[in-house]
């Protein structure tokens, strides 16, 4: 029987997996998330309108030229696949003038790798006794070529007096060896050039440890033979501090028209198109297409202007991605309304009744909602668990740092600063406040990813709303709070969202409408009324008497929402067929 039990468990697990991911779900929650996320995205992008050039233009904070260079050249490394580690990158000076001088020397290296080493041979002699030989070498390099010839002759002749002082260790060498060493010194001087480059190079080589020195010689020897290739490698190294041969790849996988467009008029045109797309997405018109375009639009901005992007943009990108994948336009959208109109026209076709009954549950809606839920939990777990590693969260000072953050919190308001000052007068009160802030944050962020899957879900939903409202109020991160709460909507049962119009109906009344089905015009208007009746308020009564003209548009839940919108009255009239 163990086999049968195992198979049963397998099936149970498989079924649980299928139920979790593939049970068709009502897309109404996704529709509400679309409206909320669309509003946030629209706000963010509207706010860009006055800063288009400052953030995304050719002369933005990160200029187009710099952004393109970063996009195409940024080094990407991958760890070694085996145990063998790649050679440690060679350390070069950080001071620009020293760094530039050394790279100038490297650019002058001959094509032939053996010739490069020959030019550097004297370094080994020099570093046998760098203390006394460095001064000699520096003095020797300062001589003219003719003077150096004289010095060589004096050394070969063992002359008692020479132009410069030779170190003792040098004088003890056989004359032939000493002259050969000086020939090597000439080669090194020819390569290093005059001071101060020569000195910077020697300093650099001296300051490397033994392993790094050998590494530097290997680096020099292994530089490409071809001049252009070598120059590219050195230029890249000097700029990015990375050996392009050790990188896994280069550049970031990003796209945006702001990497290419320069003309202000074109920029404004693209931005206007983006705002239109985001608006259409928010109201849910042609959502299958506009959701993709809206996601692309969000990427355009996020990819181009890395220096001004923050947590808000990461979360907006996530939400827009999921709303693009899922059928977010299947409910609470203009698309849905249009489908209802088409269905009303097609009545009494069976499919039309089905469409008017409500959005069709879909597997994709469930997959999307599950992905949002899991992603939300991952965000919380990541930030919560990382906080647990931080000393300031353990000793509760993170609470003070959050409340007193000079650039984030409300402390730029006089009243807030004075309130904090009053609180801080009492150490106990402040400790209680900061402790509460920290404990609540940690409990929410660490506890929610697990406990939201239990019967405690309502408590954690309320807690999460409180957390993000607090962050929005105290730290001013309102759009961030709103987009996190949009993700949180994925945990709301669809029935809660679907029945939300009920509260509107309670304030209105059930509507009984009499119409003559034999009259085409009346029948069409009655069907239109059914299409607009998203809350099931209307009861159609086919009789000879017509009461269609007595229907108050504002008694319908859908139209009531338009009442305070600009042009809402006109639109309501049109929808009613007036």
């Amino acid at each position, binding site marked *: 029987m163990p086999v049968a039990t195992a198979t049963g468990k397998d099936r149970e697990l498989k079924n649980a997996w299928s139920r979790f991911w593939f049970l068709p779900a009502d897309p109404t929650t996704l529709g509400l998330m679309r409206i909320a996320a669309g509003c946030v995205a629209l706000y963010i992008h509207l706010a860009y309108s006055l800063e288009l050039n400052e*953030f995304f233009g050719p002369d933005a*904070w990160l200029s187009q030229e710099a952004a393109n260079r970063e*996009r195409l050249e940024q080094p990407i490394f991958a760890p070694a696949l085996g145990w063998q580690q790649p050679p440690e990158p060679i350390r070069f000076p950080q001071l620009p003038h020293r760094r530039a001088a050394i790279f100038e020397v490297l650019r002058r290296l001959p094509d032939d790798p053996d010739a490069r080493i020959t030019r550097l041979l004297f370094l080994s002699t020099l570093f046998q006794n760098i203390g006394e030989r460095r001064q000699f070498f520096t003095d020797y390099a300062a001589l003219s070529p003719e003077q150096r010839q004289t010095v060589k002759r004096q050394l070969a002749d063992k002359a008692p007096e020479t132009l410069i002082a030779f170190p003792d260790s040098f004088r003890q060498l056989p004359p032939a060896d000493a002259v050969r060493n000086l020939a090597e010194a000439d080669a090194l001087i020819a390569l290093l050039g005059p001071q101060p480059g020569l000195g910077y190079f020697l300093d650099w080589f001296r300051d490397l440890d033994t392993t790094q020195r050998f590494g530097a010689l290997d680096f020099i020897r292994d530089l490409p033979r071809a001049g252009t290739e070598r120059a590219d490698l050195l230029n890249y190294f000097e700029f990015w501090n990375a050996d392009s041969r050790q990188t896994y790849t280069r550049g970031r996988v990003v*796209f945006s028209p702001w990497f290419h467009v320069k003309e202000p008029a074109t920029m404004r045109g693209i931005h206007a198109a983006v705002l239109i797309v985001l608006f259409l997405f928010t109201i849910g018109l042609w959502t299958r297409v506009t959701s993709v375009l809206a996601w692309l639009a969000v990427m355009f901005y996020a990819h181009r202007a890395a220096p001004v*992007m923050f947590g808000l943009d990461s979360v907006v990108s996530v939400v827009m991605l999921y709303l693009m994948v899922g059928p977010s336009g299947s409910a609470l959208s203009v698309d849905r309304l249009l489908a209802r109109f088409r269905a009303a026209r097609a009545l009494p076709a069976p499919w039309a009744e089905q469409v008017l009954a409500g959005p069709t549950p879909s597997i994709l809606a469930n997959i999307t909602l599950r992905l949002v839920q899991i992603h939300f939990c991952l965000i919380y777990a990541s930030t919560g668990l990382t906080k647990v590693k931080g000393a300031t969260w353990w000793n509760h000072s993170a609470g003070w740092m959050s409340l007193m953050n*000079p650039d984030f919190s409300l402390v*730029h308001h006089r009243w807030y600063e004075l309130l904090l000052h009053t609180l801080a007068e009492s150490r106990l009160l402040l400790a209680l406040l900061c402790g509460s802030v920290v404990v609540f944050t940690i409990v929410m962020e660490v506890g929610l990813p697990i406990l939201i899957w239990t019967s405690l879900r309502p408590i954690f939903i309320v807690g999460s709303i409180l957390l993000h409202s607090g962050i929005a109020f105290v730290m001013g991160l309102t759009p961030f709070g709103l987009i996190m709460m949009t993700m949180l909507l994925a945990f709301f049962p669809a029935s809660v969202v679907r029945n939300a119009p009920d509260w509107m109906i309670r304030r209105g009344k059930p509507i009984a409408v009499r119409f003559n089905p034999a009259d085409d015009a009346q029948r069409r208007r009655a069907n239109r009324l059914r299409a607009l009746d998203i809350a099931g308020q209307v009861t159609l009564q086919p009789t000879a008497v017509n009461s269609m003209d007595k229907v108050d548009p504002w008694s319908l839940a859908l139209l009531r929402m338009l009442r305070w919108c600009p042009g809402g009255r006109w639109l309501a009239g049109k929808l009613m067929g007036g």
Partner: protein
Amino acid sequence: MTEPLIELRRLYPRAGIALGFIVVALVLGSMRTSDGLDGPRVVLVALGTIGVGSVLARRPDLPAAWAIAVAGGLLGYVALPASWDSFRLLAGVLTAVALVGLMVVLLPLRWRLRAATLLVVLHLGGIVTAITGEGDQPWLFAQMWARVYRPYLQFTNQNTAYHFFAPNPGAPSELWFGIEYDTPDAARRFAWVVVPKRSDSHDPLWNSYYRRLKIPEYASNASELSNPLAAELEEFASLRDPPERDANYIPHHPLQPAARQLLIPSPATQHLVLPSFVRHVALENQRPGSPIKSIRVYRVVHDYIFPEHFVGAPDDKGKPNRQVGPFDPTTYLPYYLGTFDAQGVPRPGPDALRWWMIPILARPDAPLDAVRFRSLADSDYERSFVDHVKRHAGSDGYRKGP
């Protein structure tokens, strides 16, 4: 039961028109004199791709619709001008997505669900890889990030670890640009540009202010407290503290640890980020008839204050201390990043204080109630604080905060 779907044959004309747009872009690109036609080509490809997308949106259940999308993506890739390389990347990815969609649609339902499972697992694997991407990343996840997930995570802007205010809330940063103009008018000779400033925000929810708050962080994101070579340290020290000190000598910060007083930006920050920032500031702050002579840049850590300093808690002898407000000048720890011209080119040669902290200190007789510092007049400021940044930049006034 759902609304009857549109028939494929009715979609063919739309698909034809959409593909036609892309083909026209292709033809324009193949013309000998296609200079100046890059823009129209991109617009045509964009319209064509949207058209193809709308066809697919109507019948995502049909392999033919996905095949049209694959064709559209491939044509778009070829039709886009080389100068729009990032859009070629986009076209390539859209083609790949359409190809995967085509393969999934061809599968029976049971296998489609298996494919969906695979895609979900792959996607969530990527998110976990990104989340573990900061700090000590496990070797396996580091491999997965670099060799598998990086393109996907970057493309979808999900390459983030969500470490909001974690492991510890970091002190915010600012950038101060001291602009010197070439003008005989002493009143217009110097200007400070502080980033971010709340007054620069244009929207009611301060979103643009929070975006600007990230700008200094980008200059410091790329910074690293590197380990200078011995000769460099000697040079740093000799430039910073010359043997003969004149009246212009700026002391070290007496209260900050020595290791915190030198911060060397990474080469990418030095070569890419700072010159770009300086060029932008120069362009935004031009004054007619007064060309910019130089711009001094300071990256400023706006340090937190402890509650006991905030309330001016008395010392162990019961003597009251000065109250330090959140915008007290001494809470700013500025690092000098160099002097640049209006083109963002750093002033050549050694620069004595580059990358060193320039202190702003309270005078011993500074007023005890510094919470009111924001209403300080210039003269009171001078009486209360020693602002070496102001002296170093050659400015007459101080920066008003916040």
